[in-house]
């Protein structure tokens, strides 16, 4: 329900006339719902800012939040919900920051009651509902942005390729492998093989919580690609449960070497490359 020109004019008048009372009451209600997690000064600053932009919008003859006069008001609301979302408030707490205005307005309008008051209040209430919905949408958008950023950061930091020995590199995989991550791991590993000229790579899956057919498929692809380039891959860090899952799912690792721990895998590679450890030499000599 859109506001008529007179209604928005009356709203502007009402807001300007009782400016201090409104913002005080608004701050009070919001402070109650947030239980002291935001300072009183900060809240009243936000209330005054919202109040000011509402007065401006109403003076310009705001009929609907989506129309041209609502631009600044929308910006203020978006900023409010963005800051709430970043500070970790819930969606309800953010929406209350706007809906509190309705309570404050109702208390004010009950005093000077006449025939048109109810009609006016319903119209204002619809406007505030719109504002609340808009706030909620901005809140969700901010949260989604945060999640996307975090996913990207996770992708960046989670796939280091480390050099274990001359000609031996290892990838300690941590966390669930989805297609995107598997692709990044594969590319980074193969590039490192080229850059360092290492003929051996160890893929350690100690930190992978579960291995299903898809994860196994990704690992197998990486191993086959490395083989095409002329490097050998060894899979290590297979926990007992994962070994059981692999067998139960019927995944075939074929002739790919699998070892229980990273140490075993390194020992296996060193033996292949002909590096002799002192313990082995001692055993042979005795």
């Amino acid at each position, binding site marked *: 329900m859109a506001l008529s020109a007179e209604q928005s004019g009356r709203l502007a008048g009402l807001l300007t006339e009782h400016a201090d009372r409104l913002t005080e009451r608004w701050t009070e209600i919001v402070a109650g719902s947030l239980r002291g997690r935001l300072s009183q000064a900060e809240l009243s600053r936000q209330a005054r800012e919202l109040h000011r932009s509402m007065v401006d919008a109403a003076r310009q003859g705001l009929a609907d939040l989506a129309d041209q006069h609502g631009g600044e008001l929308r910006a203020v609301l978006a900023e409010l919900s963005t800051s709430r979302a970043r500070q970790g408030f819930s969606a309800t707490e953010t929406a209350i920051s706007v809906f509190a205005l309705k309570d404050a307005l109702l208390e004010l309008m009950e005093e000077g009651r006449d025939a048109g008051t109810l009609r006016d209040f319903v119209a204002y209430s619809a406007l505030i509902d719109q504002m609340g919905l808009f706030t909620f949408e901005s809140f969700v958008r901010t949260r989604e942005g945060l999640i996307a950023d975090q996913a990207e950061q996770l992708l960046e930091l989670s796939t280091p390729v480390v050099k274990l020995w001359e000609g031996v590199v290892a990838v300690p995989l941590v966390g669930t492998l989805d297609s995107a991550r598997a692709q990044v791991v*594969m*590319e980074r590993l*193969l*590039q490192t*093989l*080229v850059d360092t*000229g*290492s*003929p051996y790579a160890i893929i350690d899956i100690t930190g992978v919580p579960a291995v299903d057919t898809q994860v196994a498929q990704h690992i197998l*692809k990486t191993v*086959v*690609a*490395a*083989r*095409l*380039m*002329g*490097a050998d891959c060894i899979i290590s860090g297979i926990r007992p449960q994962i070994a059981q899952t692999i067998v139960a799912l019927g995944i075939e690792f074929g002739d790919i070497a699998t070892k229980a721990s990273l140490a075993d895998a390194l020992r296996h590679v060193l033996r292949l490359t002909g590096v002799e450890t002192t313990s082995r030499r001692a055993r042979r000599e005795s």
Partner: protein
Amino acid sequence: MERVPILKIGDILLVSIQVDMSDQTAIQLQEDLAERIVATGCHGVIIDITALDIVDSFVGRMLSTIASISKVLDAETVVVGMRPAVAITLVELGLSLNGIRTALNVERGMELIAASRSDEWDEADVDEDAETTATS
């Protein structure tokens, strides 16, 4: 028509593919290589594909054919320098280049050929020893 040069280094023939392979170039390379293996009596062929951005099924089959021809002429073929992107594409396409040995770079390829040659010599030695002990 472009021709791919074949270089002889010691006991090894080095083929570095730097141009896009067409049917004609590929057939020419197969013929040239077969002749050179026989003429030089080399026992190793290294095909360097570092410069190739794209390896499709055509190039894959060409590599397999060269490997088979060399095998018949008693020469070991090693494909070296495959780029990561190329390897990933081949895996996604399901082309596994059966029967072809690979190495990271030319140096490793030469080591690989040297190692497999020495293995053969060792086996030959063992066989001879076995025969001598059997006859004596």
